[in-house]
């Protein structure tokens, strides 16, 4: 935090240690004849017959796959070295807007690794997986309470999978009402995340964009104009990707509901409102929850996550299977005697069916359930409060000094857990783009905010600090941005050429797109 980025190096002629490493792949480390694993003998009575006697030669591989031949120490060193070429949440502030990069409690990893979880086969008979089913059921109940909607499916593997599920539910709902053919359009605001329109297309719908008004909310006139009997669904994020809670939310949902559409809530920003406001109470039918955002599942460099959905009564019949059912014990023995069952399409004939194999990303459920147990109801509400406090405090710090001058708020309203600045001033007055500021932040050992999203903001910087950052770390971020801007007033070239201290410097992405090399050439 007390990094002094501008101090001179100890001596010239000394490259940053990381930059000395040429990236060498595990394949390039391979030496024929090396290996790590020791595979036991088959040991079948009568000894080993030739494989060709068991499988016709025509079905066998002509050449072994050219996997690396490396010893265990080499594997450990190789991937340890790679790991050090990553910035992570434990390196410093990671205010990647819309991603809720909150601390990942190590307890959650511990409980997920218990053999009763980690080595439980997904085809185990429900009667012998009661702990897992009870855990899933309990998580469902907690999410239901948090979302304000009665029914849950944990099945979707991520937010976008939840979106697709929601749209397929919408389709099934309209089909059930005989309206599948005419309801072809899905409304999404222009602030929507890219997965929303992409999911709409995959679900066979047409995207209709709704404008954002000057206060950063849904433009009600535009919404009304576009809401008709062709509308299948409205997809909305609230607070939206600008970090703003839509003041007209009740009216928005009522409008679409009256027109016969379903209401889909993109829960990526749930971390702002847990225990304070519930999508169900806002009038939504379907909500996805990103367990890897609000519920502390580590992001893993791009997953795994999970995107459970919560739905209203009218959507419930169509929920994906399998579903979990709690069956009260007959013995009058109360809770202790309850059983948990998996129900499939036979019991739920109107279900849209499966979205994937087995029961979903159970390991993620374990972590998120541990997180909910750790925080409890009050703790979740407080987490949201602190997330909002931290964002607003950081914003207050960034309205001072040069950030206030060159990086104004895109929409001048009180944000919740994140806020979006526009770098258009910096670009115009300093000749430094949002990308340059982001890259220069890397030299400060900080992860940049989300950049160039939402699309409607010019040179957007989307900042979400989360509740687990300390005040010192927020101050450090504000100070870093201030010093970058001050430096740019003097010499914008510094930011334009940044970063300098990272394992590699700016990469030729255009070249990679023109001439994609996406696997190693093994000769």
């Amino acid at each position: 935090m007390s990094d002094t980025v501008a101090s001179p190096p100890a001596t010239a002629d000394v490259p940053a240690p990381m930059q000395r490493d040429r990236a060498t792949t595990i394949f390039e480390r391979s030496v024929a004849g090396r290996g790590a694993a020791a595979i036991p003998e088959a040991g079948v009575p009568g000894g080993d017959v030739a494989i060709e006697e068991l499988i016709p030669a025509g079905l066998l591989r002509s050449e072994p796959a050219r996997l690396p031949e490396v010893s265990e120490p080499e594997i450990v060193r190789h991937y340890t070295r790679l790991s050090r070429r990553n910035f992570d949440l434990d390196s410093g502030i990671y205010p990647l807007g819309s991603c809720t990069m909150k601390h990942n409690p190590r307890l959650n990893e511990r409980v997920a690794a218990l053999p009763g979880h980690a080595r439980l086969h997904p085809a185990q008979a429900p009667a012998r997986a009661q702990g897992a089913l009870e855990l899933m059921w309990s998580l469902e109940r907690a999410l239901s309470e948090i979302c304000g909607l009665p029914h849950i499916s944990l099945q979707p593997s991520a937010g976008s999978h939840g979106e697709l599920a929601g749209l397929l539910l919408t389709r099934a709902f309209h089909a059930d009402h005989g309206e599948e053919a005419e309801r072809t359009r899905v409304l999404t605001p222009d602030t929507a995340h890219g997965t929303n329109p992409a999911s709409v297309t995959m679900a066979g719908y047409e995207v209709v964009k709704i404008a954002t008004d000057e206060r950063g909310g849904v433009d009600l006139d535009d919404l009304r104009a576009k809401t008709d009997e062709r509308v299948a669904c409205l997809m909305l994020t609230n607070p939206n990707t600008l970090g703003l809670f839509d003041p007209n939310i009740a009216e928005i949902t009522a409008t679409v509901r009256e027109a016969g559409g379903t209401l889909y809530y993109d829960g990526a920003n749930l971390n702002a409102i847990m225990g304070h406001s519930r999508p169900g109470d806002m009038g939504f039918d379907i909500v996805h929850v990103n367990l890897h955002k609000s519920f502390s599942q580590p992001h893993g460099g791009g997953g795994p996550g999970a995107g459970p959905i919560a739905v209203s009564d009218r959507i419930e019949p169509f929920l994906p299977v399998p579903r979990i059912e709690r069956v009260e014990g007959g013995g009058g023995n109360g809770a202790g005697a309850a059983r948990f069952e998996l129900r499939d399409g036979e019991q739920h004939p109107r279900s849209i069916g499966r979205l994937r194999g087995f029961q979903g990303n159970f390991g993620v459920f374990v972590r998120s359930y541990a997180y909910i147990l750790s925080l409890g109801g009050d703790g979740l509400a407080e987490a949201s409060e602190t997330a909002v406090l931290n964002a607003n405090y950081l914003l207050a710090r960034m309205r001072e000094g040069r950030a206030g001058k060159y990086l104004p708020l895109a929409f001048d309203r009180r944000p919740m857990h994140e806020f979006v600045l526009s770098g258009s001033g910096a670009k115009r007055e300093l000749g430094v783009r949002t990308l340059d500021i982001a890259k220069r932040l890397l030299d400060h050992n900080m992860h940049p905010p989300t950049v160039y999203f939402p699309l409607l903001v010019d040179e957007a910087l989307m900042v979400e600090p989360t509740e687990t950052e300390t005040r010192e770390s927020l101050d450090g971020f504000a100070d870093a941005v201030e010093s970058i801007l001050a430096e740019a007033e003097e010499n914008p070239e510094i930011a334009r050429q940044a970063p300098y201290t990272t394992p590699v410097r700016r990469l030729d992405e255009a070249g990679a797109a023109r001439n994609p090399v996406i696997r190693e050439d093994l000769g």
Partner: protein
Amino acid sequence: MSGYTSVTDGERREMLAAIGVDSIEDLFDVPAGVRLDRDLDLADGLGEAEVYERLRDLASRNADAESEVCFLGAGMYDHYAPALVDAIVSRSEFLTPYTPYQPEISQGGLQAMFEFQTAMSELTGLPLSSAGLYEGPSTVAAAAYLAIGATKRRRFVVSAGVNPQSRQTLTTYAAGYPAEVTSVGLDGGRTDLDSLAAAVDEETAAVIVQYPNFLGAVEDLAAIAEVAHEAGALLIAACDPIALGILKTPGESGVDIAVGEGQPLGNRLDYGGPSFGFFCATEAQIRRMPGRIAGETTDVDGRRGFVLALQTREQHIRREKATHNICTAQALNALGGIIYLSWLGRRGLVELGELLVRRTHYARERLTAIDGVEPLHDAPVVREFAIGFDAPVGRVLDHCAAHGIAAGVPLGSEHGNGLLVAITEQRTVTQIDRLAEVLSEALGQAADSRQQAAGVGG
């Protein structure tokens, strides 16, 4: 205050003052009508030891593969994942970052993706690999979606040898694409080539099979490819990545898209997830691939580096025109996959595959030698096979479970009364012999009780 946050009361006051408001409430610009004016109806937070105890108690109520001898499969398998996989993927540098949007500080993850792609491309014999999708069955749906884009057709012909969960998932997705799904049956355990030829037509976007198939049989992909390609359809094969270590590659056999469940590659069983799905294809599909793909490039100083490549396929750039909607995928699981493959190595993968073939054929012999047990087919198998019998499957499984054995996955009505039995390197010959013994007991008892029932009835 939970131990995960740090704002003290004093700091809260100071921060509110800096913001210029009096209370936290003032920050919640939420209309009264949609404010929750009560506490969440959830239990109070617990200390770490208490949460651990609670979850340990739940975990202890599951019969896992450490407490039972597990012959379950059908897509996920109880392979031994070496300790170094866990050790590496639990390093916070891999565990905690997000998608590598800032490549300069994400070279570790990006390079691992590139290595993963190389390994999957080697396994499948296809030139393109994405960095990983969610899991097995949904990759089948993703491949089918690609086929629509590639062929502009909307009909899939799916073999009954494809895992029922994959077929169900495809059907769910196809309601949206929209597309039609047709089934063709098996003959001798493998896709019936005549029915297939009859079912494939000019409207067919893709033929979809599994390799080895749901009943464990190794399909003749080359023959199937011929049928598909003749009609201008793509061939999609859902593959077991371990079996690909010894089987003729999909690429060599003419498959256009090879997908599958990545769990067998060093991932935990985890009651079904998280794992990863892989997705490989021919060069022709490069602009239609779903998911992240890492590509090699150089930095301004000429250093080798990696970036997310071909991003113009993706939702964050192309939005409604994206080739797929996936965003958060399963990067950490795919990382586990490449580490596992590096550990197995060129020789280990073959040795493992051969071990599986030998023990699986042995197990099939042993089990089908039991009175009343019939093989469902006698096609060659790699690691899994199906047996039929006419005792109630649930009863048989219960008997085996009482002896500490999870004997197999029920086949389901489509394939008749029986079990799918899976072998891994952790299933020793002794365990297989024991399974045979216990299964034979179970069937004997079932037969007895049938006789008794018959006696009582008679």
